[in-house]
């Protein structure tokens, strides 16, 4: 009984730490650069993280099953390119939107199919498809940029509710609410965590594992397609550099949010807060005119630190690693 108590308190403190970190960063940036305290700046933080945010929410599902998808950024990129090409050749906005969403979904389905049907590890599968997707979009678009999308389309993603709340943030929150309720209260979340701990056992409970795998990779694909639209709506330029570093940001957000890279343990809410933290960093660095390299350096540091923290707390919590049991090494408990 004391153990379950501990487990809950650890979860709470993890999210507590994230919230503290978030406010700490805002205050620090605000002290250095007082403009940061302006509501418009803080609201902008919410707007710029929408596309990375929805992908991170979908990625949380996958990392919970101890999988990963490295191809997210280039899926987003290819979907954006497809949008640009379809729109500029047909001038049909609905068709272009549908094409982008479909492109993302199909690419995600392709990932899911390989991961579910073969024994190739997701890391390797999506490393390969990452270059595949990038290759395709380079062949299609090269160094071309597509722009000149209609104002109506842009409004979908730049609109501010009541004149203040960025609609990107509302999309992000909506996806968050749906994914979180399925994750925290639904059968799906139960199965995802079970798969992260011990896939065979979940299979022996009559759960259709392959279906779930294909489903979650496809869902992430769809979210990549949507993220492509959000990105285009915000910056209105489709080009072949928008996918760079995205997978790294997405995975960092998920792990910082408290989802274990070993699977089984995770939190969509953590991912939500972690996205805001990364947004604050990004905005803060921009205001302080620090380069993107320093931003990436900071993210890398956060990533390695959250991995270490997790490894240590997990050892303390005595979580039986499914990997250890599979290889039959006598565990030191």
């Amino acid at each position, binding site marked *: 009984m004391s153990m379950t108590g501990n487990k809950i308190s650890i979860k709470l403190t993890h999210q507590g730490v994230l919230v503290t970190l978030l406010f700490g960063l805002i205050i620090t940036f605000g002290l250095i650069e007082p403009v940061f305290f302006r509501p418009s700046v803080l609201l902008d933080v919410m707007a710029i993280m929408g596309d990375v945010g929805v992908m991170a929410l979908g990625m949380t599902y996958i990392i919970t099953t101890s999988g990963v998808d490295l191809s997210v950024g280039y899926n987003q990129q290819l979907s954006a390119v497809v949008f640009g090409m379809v729109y500029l050749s047909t001038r049909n906005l609905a068709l272009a939107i549908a094409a982008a969403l479909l492109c993302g979904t199909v690419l995600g389905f392709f990932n899911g199919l390989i991961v579910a049907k073969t024994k190739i590890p997701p890391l390797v599968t999506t490393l390969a498809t990452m270059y595949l997707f990038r290759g395709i979009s380079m062949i299609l678009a090269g160094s071309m940029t597509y722009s000149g999308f209609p104002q109506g389309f842009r409004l979908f993603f730049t609109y501010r509710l009541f004149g203040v709340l960025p609609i990107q943030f509302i999309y992000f929150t909506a996806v968050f609410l749906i994914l979180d309720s399925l994750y925290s209260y639904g*059968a799906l979340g139960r199965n995802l965590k079970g798969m992260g701990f*011990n896939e*065979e*056992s*979940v299979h*022996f*409970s*009559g759960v259709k594992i392959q279906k779930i795998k294909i489903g979650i990779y496809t869902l992430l694909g769809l979210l990549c397609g949507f993220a492509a639209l959000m990105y285009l709506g915000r910056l209105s330029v489709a080009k072949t550099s928008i996918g760079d570093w995205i997978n790294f940001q997405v995975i960092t957000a998920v792990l910082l949010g408290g989802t274990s890279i070993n699977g089984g343990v995770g939190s969509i809410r953590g991912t939500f807060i972690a996205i805001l933290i990364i947004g604050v960093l990004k905005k803060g660095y921009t205001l302080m005119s620090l380069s993107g390299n320093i931003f990436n350096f900071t993210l890398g540091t956060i990533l390695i630190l959250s991995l270490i923290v997790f490894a240590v707390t997990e050892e303390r919590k005595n979580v039986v690693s499914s990997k250890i049991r599979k290889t039959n090494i006598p565990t030191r408990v």
Partner: protein
Amino acid sequence: MEKQPILDICGIDKRFPGVLALKDVSLQLLPGEVHAICGENGAGKSTLMKIIAGVYVADTGSILLDGQELHLENPNDAYKQGLSIIFQESSLFPDLTVLENLFMGHEEQKSLFPVLPFIRMNDIPKMRKRAKEIFIRLEMNVDLDEKISALGVATKQMVEIAKALTFDSKVLILDEPTAALTNKEVHTLFETIRRLKQEGVSILYISHRLEEIFQIADRVSVLRDGAYVATADVSDVSKPKLISWMVGRFLENLYPKEDVEIGETVFEVKELWQRGLLHGISFSLGKGEILGIAGLAGAGRTELALAVCGLSKADKGELLLNGKKLVIHQYRDALDKGIAYISEDRQRYGLVLPMTLKENITHKVLNRICNVFGIIDRRKENSITDSYMSQLSIKAPDGSFVVSKLSGGNQQKVSVAKSLAAEPQILILDEPTRGVDVGAKSELHRIISNLAKAGKSIIIISSDLPEILGMSDRVMVMKNGCKAGELLRAELTQERILEMAL
């Protein structure tokens, strides 16, 4: 003359958060004896062994090896001090050869150039020679260049024993060594133990199986709830006496199977084939009937269960449920039709250990307790959990307790509860009492018997002959993937089952 003990365990206490796992345990292992340690699950056997092995550090007390205080930094130190422990799970490297495993970490070496003595390489001929000598001592014929993964369980165990001998171990600790062995392999293992004993090796033998203790051990010590109960010469104690020490009371009947009127046939399997594994198996099952499936390990019993449930694919065959043809593509179909399978390996297939009781018990019925949006109904979930926790008297504080913290017997009950929650008409139990203590075993048997009384049809796959004999209305014996025969309750004897199985 009183012999000096080779391993002297004095007053060991070990406290874990919330529990005193061992209190004041003392044991003496004499040179050249086989000393059995028995006790229910959770009695502290494994903890004691892990303390001897250096995995845990005792809070108080001391361990003397050959009169010297034993200080172990880690399990590898134990080997070097002449103390070898063979765990239930193999600690061999499956992709390396027998020879490489034997000398892993302490390879025989020679210097490559006399002028540069620090450049050394493995002396393979020398290791090979020593390995051969050891296997001759064990009277075993093992191919030194075979990969471990290609060996059977029994041979792997022999390799572990041989590995212990490469360290010239004086003390050998065996943890449930016969758990995965067939009767014939157990016999071979016992021959080896006797041979080692004659050579003066002392053996600490941990086991649940009382029959084995009477066959192999010189003395036996009993632990109960972390405390030492008694030690006796095996020749001086009887089985009921030993059991009473373990549970603190006499068990009146180990197998409280009640007679149940067997109803009409509800389930039929006809000519089930699976390439290389199952050869045209047919059987039927009546309402309220318990069908035992006996056979040696590898006879195809588990394979049969998996094929019936859709967990593996049969090539040919027909299933009839209540006279209607049944089509099963995957396990979900079987569950929905009322057929549930409880795996023999609860840790790997039966349960998700790091998850809670509640999450495990309701895992097979999530589809039934969800609303249209896939959100779990907490009330239904809790009521299912509570009802099975009390029905099976699972000992845990509440439904949000993590399963990995439960004892083996309680884990097994959770595994059973998980399948019962699916409210099956046909229940297939694979080795339902493997690795559980005497008390839990008897309880599980009572539960199974009650299920039959309630009209469920049950298949028990078991290697434990007394269990098969005690529980079954009818027994099907399997051999090499074929059905060797069937016996009714009245004609059941261990000898007849073995005759068919061998």
